[in-house]
């Protein structure tokens, strides 16, 4: 029973990071219909940017804030340089651009920071574990959870209450109607990319703190896919629940099935789960059932 609880709680803590990245992914899909294949590389890039600030001697909170700002600017820039001219073009072409972006960013990261695993030194969070009854929890997990939670709340608040957040939701709902009310769709797309970069950057940073930072952090970008499919591709709460569910699932399968198999179950389980979900609920838990007229 303790093992189970331990696995579930760790799953939730890690899952909150997935939720953050999933939210960034969902925003782009929701607002522009683009399947962002470069999400993993965005997390990678953000994590390395934060590492750079940290190694230059900035305190971690400042480094994280700087990462958010850099992410925001990079997001606007990416949209302006690569995606703006694709507005109105076939959506598949735009998706291929994001595939191209993923290779581009990966190469940029490799070029600047190399491929060796880096760690945040000195460690950002105290290394001594916290005991909760019989459970043992690394502090890094708890702090990561809190950081992810704060950012999730900020983003959700932004969407629900701010003028720009609302117009983003409106554009996602009915682009033509939003245009007719004077919502600038270009700015909505740009903001979506900026938010995706920020969410991914923080997600990557937190994960890099847990496991160390190398190219494999970019794997998170693929892991986001089952999370958003579970929640419904265009649902913000869905992305959050989906991310946490995937975190729990990954930990449970790692804890219970790993010893029965040659290994790798932990990585496969979310995708098996995704396929099963798609069989029964192709729109996910909270996705909009959009009937496309051809």
């Amino acid at each position, binding site marked *: 029973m303790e093992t189970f609880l331990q696995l579930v709680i760790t799953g939730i803590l890690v899952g909150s990071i997935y939720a953050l990245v999933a939210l960034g992914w969902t925003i782009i899909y929701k607002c522009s219909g683009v399947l962002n294949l470069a999400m993993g590389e965005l997390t990678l890039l953000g994590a390395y940017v934060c590492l750079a600030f940290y190694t230059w001697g900035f305190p971690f909170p400042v480094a994280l804030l700087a990462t958010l700002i850099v992410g925001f600017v990079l997001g606007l820039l990416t949209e302006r340089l690569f995606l703006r001219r694709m507005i109105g073009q076939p959506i598949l072409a735009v998706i291929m651009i994001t595939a191209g972006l993923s290779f581009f960013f990966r190469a940029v990261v490799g070029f600047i920071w190399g491929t060796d695993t880096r760690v945040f030194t000195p460690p950002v969070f105290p290394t001594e574990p916290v005991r909760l009854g019989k459970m043992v929890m690394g502090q890094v997990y708890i702090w990561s959870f809190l950081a992810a939670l704060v950012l999730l709340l900020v983003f959700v608040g932004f969407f629900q209450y701010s*003028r720009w957040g609302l117009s983003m*939701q409106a554009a996602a709902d*009915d682009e033509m109607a939003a*245009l007719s*009310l004077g919502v600038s769709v270009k700015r909505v797309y740009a903001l979506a990319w900026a938010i995706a970069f920020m969410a991914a950057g923080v997600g990557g940073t937190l994960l890099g703190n847990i496991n160390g930072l190398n190219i494999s952090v970019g794997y998170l970008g693929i892991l986001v896919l089952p999370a958003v499919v579970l929640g419904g591709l265009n649902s913000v709460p869905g992305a959050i629940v989906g991310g946490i569910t995937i975190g729990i699932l990954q930990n449970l399968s790692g804890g219970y099935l790993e010893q029965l198999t040659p290994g790798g179950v932990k990585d496969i389980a979310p995708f098996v789960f995704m396929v099963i979900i798609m069989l029964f609920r192709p729109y996910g838990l909270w996705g909009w059932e959009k009937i496309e007229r051809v």
Partner: protein
Amino acid sequence: MLKINNIEVLYHEVILALKAVSLEVPAGEVVALLGANGAGKSTTLKAISGLLRHENGKVAEGSIEFLGERIDRKSAEEIARMGIIQVIEGRRVFEHLTVEQNLKVGAHLGGNGAMVRNGLEAVYHYFPRLQERRNVVAGMGLAPLLIKEIFEIITRLHQEQGIAILLVEQNAKLALAVARHAYVLEGGRVVMDGPSEQLRENPDIRDFYLGLTDLGARKSFRAVKHYKRRKRWIT
């Protein structure tokens, strides 16, 4: 004052939707645009509001002026900011937002918080039922207003707020009752225009759009259709 000078609208560079359309909406007046399905009413509105580009259409010739400034090259956002808002046909609410969030999106150009609040209050003044349902998700639990109620509110908005309105409505009788001036579109051209009283008395309008004979009695649909085949303004 909104002025359309002789515009030609093309979709996909080749499909001619409007040809030599000119019309005027003087400040603070209600003008009606009549026409059958596919006559070009929606295209005219989209040309004004800048939404054409979004559907791969463009104003190829002529110009559209608002307050003395050309707007046919401006983006939908700029045009909305200048004060022209197109109410798109159909029940186009943002279904996943609440009633109040819908209104806030509409008010997002309005500047500071106080102005948005005033705007919301004005809307609730005209649509009291909305206030009760401000936190209901718009996709559920909102019933469309009856045409008659809409016309009443349009008239009030015009009279109390001095808003100029270009009214596009299939119900020609109601439209002519509210508007001072009207234009008739057919096949992408303006085929007739004049003060509403004059159009109401025009025998062709009575037959085509009001479904009335000279005696004021309703003609059968078949007779109207027959007539329609026989007589056209454009051949």
